[in-house]
């Protein structure tokens, strides 16, 4: 787990964007919002910088020459769980779905207002912050809120901050169904009604990590017409 979102620390972002003007503009804006920003113009450069400098968060353009944003996202997710926010062309196309499946935590649509991007960045960084100090067990899955870790059969699970926060919010109300919009407010801190695919994609990724059989989940259940529910095992 990355030591992200410490209040006394300036967040360190890696911006991967091939267009010079957009990269410069966003760098200017994000720096002004109080972030430390490193930039890369291609996926390959981005991956190299990521390994060298270990940023807290990555803002990733989807359309990149060479290896594209999805591939960058997948490669990072093989070993690391740091937050990734996608820059996409539009909200309703396949890019969003593929990007979320590749492991992205959130997305923004170009042209993005810097303050919107900043709000998303701060929200995703807050997800990793610890809050209480108890722990709870659901069958073989143990959630340790003080260490912000989740273990399954004693093995540490590698969860992204968003996945972890989703699991925490669900485990706070075991047996109670939460709607996608509720989860968007609680986990993603979306003020307005947001894109339910964020929740669905994150639930899928979380199930892949915590469920014994992800296609037949017993812990995180779908409540048809409502949303999701964490069921303590019988």
């Amino acid at each position, binding site marked *: 787990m990355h030591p992200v979102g410490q209040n006394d620390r300036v967040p360190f972002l890696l911006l991967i964007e091939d267009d010079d003007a957009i990269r410069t503009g966003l760098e200017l804006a994000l720096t002004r919002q109080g972030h430390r920003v490193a930039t890369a113009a291609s996926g390959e450069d981005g991956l190299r910088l990521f390994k060298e400098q270990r940023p807290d968060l990555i803002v990733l353009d989807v359309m990149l020459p060479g290896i594209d944003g999805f591939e960058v996202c997948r490669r990072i997710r093989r070993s690391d769980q740091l937050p990734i926010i996608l820059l996409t062309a539009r909200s*309703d196309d396949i890019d969003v*779905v593929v990007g979320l499946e590749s492991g992205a935590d959130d997305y923004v649509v170009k042209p993005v207002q810097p303050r919107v991007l900043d709000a998303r960045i701060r929200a995703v960084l807050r997800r990793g912050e610890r809050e209480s100090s108890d722990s709870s067990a659901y069958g073989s899955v143990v959630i340790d809120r003080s260490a912000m870790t989740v273990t399954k059969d004693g093995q540490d699970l590698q969860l992204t901050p968003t996945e972890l926060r989703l699991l925490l919010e669900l485990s706070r109300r075991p047996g109670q169904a939460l709607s996608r919009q509720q989860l968007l407010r609680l986990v993603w801190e979306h003020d307005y*009604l947001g894109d339910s*695919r964020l929740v669905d994609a994150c639930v899928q990724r979380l199930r892949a990590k915590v469920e014994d059989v992800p296609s037949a989940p017993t812990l995180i259940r*779908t409540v048809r017409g409502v949303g999701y529910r964490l069921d303590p095992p019988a």
Partner: protein
Amino acid sequence: MTDHHDGDRPLSTLGRRLLMTTLRLGSLRVRLVAVFAVVALTAAVSASGIAYWLNRDAVLKRAQDSALKDFRVSLSRNVSGLPLGASCPDLTGLANDVASSGLGYTVVVVDEAQPGCTATSDSRFTLTQVPSTLVAAVDRPRPVGEGNPYAYHLYWQRVDLGGAPYLVGGTKVVPTGPTAYMFKSLDNERADLDTLGWSLAVATLLALIAATLLAQAASATVLRPVRQLADAARRLGEGKLDTRLTVSGADELADLARTFNSTAEALAAQVEELSAREAQSRRFVADMSHELRTPLTAMTAVTDILEDEADALDPMIEPAVRLVVSETRRLSDLVENLMEVTRFDAGTAKLVADEVDIADLVMSCIDGRAWYDAVELDAPRGVRAMVDPRRLDVVFANLIGNALKHGGSPVRVQVSQEPAGVEVRVSDSGPGIPPDVLPHVFDRFYKADKGRARSEGSGLGLSIAMANAQIHGGTITAANAPQGGAVFTLWLPLKPPPRPGDDPADAAPNGAGDHG
């Protein structure tokens, strides 16, 4: 495709349609069958009729010739044995003799010398049964001349006695002998002729049936290509421009099929050219707006910085900076709307639906744009529907923004649950929409110059709102309220209709085996 449609239709409707098609008077099949039947009937009836009459004549003539000849011979042989001034029993004897030697006929003999005596070989037959015309003809002497050596002749007539046909013949025995009549039953001949008639009638009937079947077969061979042609024409009309017919044979129908094929080909080529041209221009607009967006993204990224710093700038420069900032945002909106329109035109716009509370959605739209003071909200919570929150937010923002801009506050938003959907009414307190503008409010780039202030939007807002409502299976109507002010009414179904290409993950995000 047709099979699929038919399969969906209730059976009764299908049956009725089939019956209608089959029984439709004036249809080619009915006409063909009728013509064949008339031809067959005419031919069979005339052939049978001629055959019957010829046969009847021949049979009767033969029967009656032999009977009359026999009667004449028998009479002349027996009459010689009759004594002069014969008594009644003598005459009866003569009648019996003639009858017994003959071909089964009855003989009645009368003599002027013995009035009141009825000499008959069978008591059922008397002179009264002989037609008076025949009696008159027999009794009337003819002038004897060169062409006529005898005064009296043998006469005959066919009569009906008690329902049975009889041949009655009579002659006077010259010169002063008695008059003899014979009754020959024609029952056998009639029975023969009846049998013949029945046979002919059955043959006619069979010919008629055969003709009908033949007509069916003929109409099938003609009608199958006709039906194929009709089906192909219908498919072509439905837009399946690759529809072609198989040309077989060298008849008129094959010619028609060839013409159909070449017409369809020409049509397909034309449509293809037109749609290619249209797609090209659409792609141009889409590419163009896409290209415009990249610099706009960079510019938008720094507008916040410029805006924040504007106050600290030289008063000469500050308005210029503010202009750049505001126009960058406007351009950005315009390009975004343009791209949205091209997506709707290309049919690539997708719905990302979730079940949400409409009141929440309206509230967040108003909240997000800081319109709270200018809008009166009458939205009970609990009105839920499957909608795309982002698209509905665009609809509300356009309708409320439009009302605020043109009508002025207070703008009233009412959300109500309808039986089959949700209704959202946005009414303003402005001057309303002029009647000549009303039909065009949803048109693209339609500027209502006369009644309304300069359109500050892209001119696409309401048309995008409409397209967004329609992609949900809903609609928006514009009207003027009786008490003044414009009213836009959005109607949405509780669930959008299924569309090909929608993200199936929205409906069932987790697949099988997980029903909570």
